[in-house]
């Protein structure tokens, strides 16, 4: 088999495997529930689209500000605790958005401690509503910024100093240097991160419903859960898929002409003193406190209030979460890596177009992805059972569940690899080939060292994300495979936040382990 055919087969196979179930949703355009569509258009669809746009812009700005800002500060300067903060600032990724949501809602809402205290001091202050666009944007920005932080920080770490020095000598202002020189260099990382943030924002249902903020995704749930029209929900989902596809296409287009030199002069970090040191330290520590310390302390406090809960009952779910996370992360990262490896040379424009298809799963609400997978699997099961002499089951097996994670999180792994591969110079590889280096040697000496950070990022992100995953696990898990996220859901579903605290706490601790293991490190002083 020729090499080209093999790569084509692998690519197409992956695309079918991952995008197949999602494209299956398109079949639901077969019948259209006209009265329901008319009702949606007449009563809500436009305001929901407006809300979604507000949310995307708000969260996009919030996460970019926090992510790029914190990455810049921890990369460029040395200050009190900067070494610890460099790694710790990605940890909020371990907190599921809806958990952050119910914690901050508990604190900020009218019945929360903050407003209760304020009303005691000033009885005329009234009630300030925290359940609005601002509340959702606040919560989601604080859990999603680490994507941008992580991916732009990788980019900062490879920033070439020489150009900047030249610009500085030429009298460019700081701002101009940042926007004309530095920003373009970190753009692939930033955009990869932003795309993830946006896809997750589009997919979110739990957080927005806590805050009573209806988005396009709310309409998907409404048509399915309230109107029992899975078909209309699938139709709305396919619109969401189209948006995600355009988003990925936009990202890919702007990424493709960025190529970097691999031998750069790295920047020596600046050691801050005095007032500057104080303010920068304060900013970074305050960010960590808001994103991580506040929710964790609240959960610890609640854990003590829930007498019926025991750590022992959470050990089996913990083991299940870990097992699933490790298996899924290894498998998904491997496949994403293979895909990136085949693709980075961009020799095959047709196949290149397939790549965004494999990433759509991340932008759809989890329950929709779960049911699409379920429908896909049940077709597959029936087909296989028909041609084979025994019954085949995928739904309710570990393999089926891992397949679901693959569909949902492939994009996460592959986005994490974007930056690493974007930086790889084709010419180095070509030169090595001309010099007679074997493919394995080239991989070992050139490709792997350059792409390892991306691969590690993929591994850790998928790991943490699988630990947090709920809808697919709920619907497709084998009996008895309760995970920590499921234990949290079991209580939050009944609005029993206090009882949910202990499993949530354990879930966050578990999720931070892989993150801490592969945390970004402070660069050695040059």
């Amino acid at each position, binding site marked *: 088999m020729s090499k080209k055919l093999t790569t084509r087969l692998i690519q197409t196979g992956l695309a079918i495997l991952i995008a197949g179930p999602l494209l299956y949703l398109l079949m639901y355009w077969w019948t259209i529930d006209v009265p329901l569509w008319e009702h949606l258009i007449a009563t809500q669809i436009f305001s929901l689209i407006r809300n979604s746009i507000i949310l995307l812009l708000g969260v996009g700005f919030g996460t970019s500000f926090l992510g790029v800002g914190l990455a810049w500060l921890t990369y460029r300067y040395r200050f009190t605790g900067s070494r610890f903060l460099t790694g710790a600032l990605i940890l909020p990724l371990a907190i599921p958005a809806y958990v952050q949501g119910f914690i901050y809602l508990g604190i900020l809402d*009218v*019945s929360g401690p903050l407003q209760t205290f304020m009303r005691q001091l000033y009885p005329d202050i009234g009630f300030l509503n925290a*359940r609005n666009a601002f509340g959702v944007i606040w919560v989601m920005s604080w859990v999603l910024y680490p994507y941008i932080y992580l991916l732009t920080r990788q980019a900062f770490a490879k920033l070439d100093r020489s150009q900047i020095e030249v610009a500085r000598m030429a009298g460019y202002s700081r701002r101009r240097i940042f926007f004309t020189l530095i920003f373009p260099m970190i753009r692939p990382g930033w955009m990869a991160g932003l795309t993830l943030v946006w896809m997750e924002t589009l997919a979110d249902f739990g957080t927005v419903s806590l805050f009573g903020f209806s988005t396009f995704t709310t309409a998907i749930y409404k048509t399915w859960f309230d109107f029992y029209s899975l078909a209309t929900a699938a139709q709305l989902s396919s619109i969401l898929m189209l948006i995600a596809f355009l988003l990925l296409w936009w990202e890919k287009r702007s990424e493709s002409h960025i190529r970097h030199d691999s031998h750069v002069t790295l920047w020596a970090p600046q050691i801050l003193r005095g007032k500057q040191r104080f303010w920068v330290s304060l900013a970074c520590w305050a960010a960590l406190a808001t994103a991580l310390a506040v929710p964790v302390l609240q959960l610890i406090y609640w854990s003590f209030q829930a007498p019926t809960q025991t750590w022992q009952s959470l050990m089996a779910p913990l083991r299940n979460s870990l097992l699933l996370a490790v298996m899924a992360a290894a498998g998904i990262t491997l496949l994403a890596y293979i895909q990136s490896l085949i693709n980075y040379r961009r020799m095959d424009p047709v196949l290149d177009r397939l790549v965004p298809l494999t990433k759509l799963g991340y932008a759809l609400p989890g329950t929709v992805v779960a049911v699409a997978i*379920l429908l896909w699997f049940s077709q597959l099961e029936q087909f296989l059972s028909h041609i084979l002499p*025994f019954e085949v089951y995928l*739904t309710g097996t570990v393999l089926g569940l891992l397949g679901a994670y693959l569909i949902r999180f492939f994009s996460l792994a592959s986005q994490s690899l974007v930056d690493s591969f974007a930086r790889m110079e084709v010419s180095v590889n070509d030169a090595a080939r001309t010099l007679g280096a074997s493919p394995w040697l080239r991989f070992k000496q050139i490709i792997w060292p350059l792409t390892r950070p991306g691969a590690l990022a993929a591994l850790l992100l998928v790991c943490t994300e699988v630990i947090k995953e709920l809808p697919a696990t709920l619907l497709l898990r084998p009996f008895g495979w309760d995970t920590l996220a499921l234990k949290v859901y079991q209580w939050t579903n009944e609005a029993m936040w206090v009882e949910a605290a202990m499993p949530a706490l354990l879930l966050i601790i578990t999720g931070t382990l892989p993150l801490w293991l592969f945390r970004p490190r402070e660069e050695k002083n040059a």
Partner: protein
Amino acid sequence: MKRLALFVALTTVTTGLFAAPLVVYSERSEQLIKPLLETYTAKTGVEIQVLTDDAAPLIARLKAEGNRTPADVLITVDAGNLWHAAESGMLAKVDSPILETRVPDYLQDPNNQWFALTVRARTIVYSTDRVTPAQLSTYEDLASPAWKGKLCLRTSKKVYNQSLVGSLINRLGDEGTRAVVDGWVNNLATEPQSSDTKALEAVIAGQCDVAIVNTYYFGRMQKANPDVPLAIFWPNQATSGVHINVSGAGITKHSKQPEAAQAFLEWMVSDEAQEIYANLDMEYPVVKDVAVDPVVAKWGTFKPDTRPVYKSGEYQRQAVMLMDAAQYR
């Protein structure tokens, strides 16, 4: 060969369960059902496996699995969901004199495809600091201008409210109901809450004075803090009665062991099971003369709305559309 081995491995993992446990798909949260199932297993030796999720995904799964489904029993927390499962042909007809007689007629499917197991009353809870029971009368009355800025409601996306509005449509017709819902929306003190608990917390905080909630949410609060400044009011006592909803169960169409599933459901309406089941979450038993939780007993008795609960399924779509049109979010 390798592939064959993989498939064999796959299939044995899932089909190698020789004892054939009873499989329950449940919308009811695990902690609110597990103790009951454990009691049954201890009594009869029948293993039970549960899969919990929302009703819609569970029904989708039942449909997708078709005759290959492992599920024997479907439990949901709303009559509307059971109605829908029956409507889409996922439930089997059950011929059981025990279920037929122990569960009141209005709490079961007219075609015997499902039966209620507990009753949940959706009622008015008011602030004892700012409201006297004399000011309250009916759900409809909460739409009157007297309650302007004093009402808290949970989101219309919750099926409990959809059933409540469905029951109003059943009684008052489309226009009459629209007037009530418009009045409610007009009277809201703040955007609808995401849960009954949050609505109650807003009443305690003083943001509003009354809320419409399921009794057990209030029960949990009162149990945790007996001095909570809230009380229950039973509305519509002179007219239609308190709106009730159910948690209930049916046997799946493709159950491989319908007899075992039926025996399990019949046990669920025994005095013993009813007492455990209803009191797990301070609900009301469907069977008469079963003791309720002491906290619940203190609220007294009430006249329930005895229109058949399956009607809420029939009216659900209309109810959601009406609430959407009224901007009740």
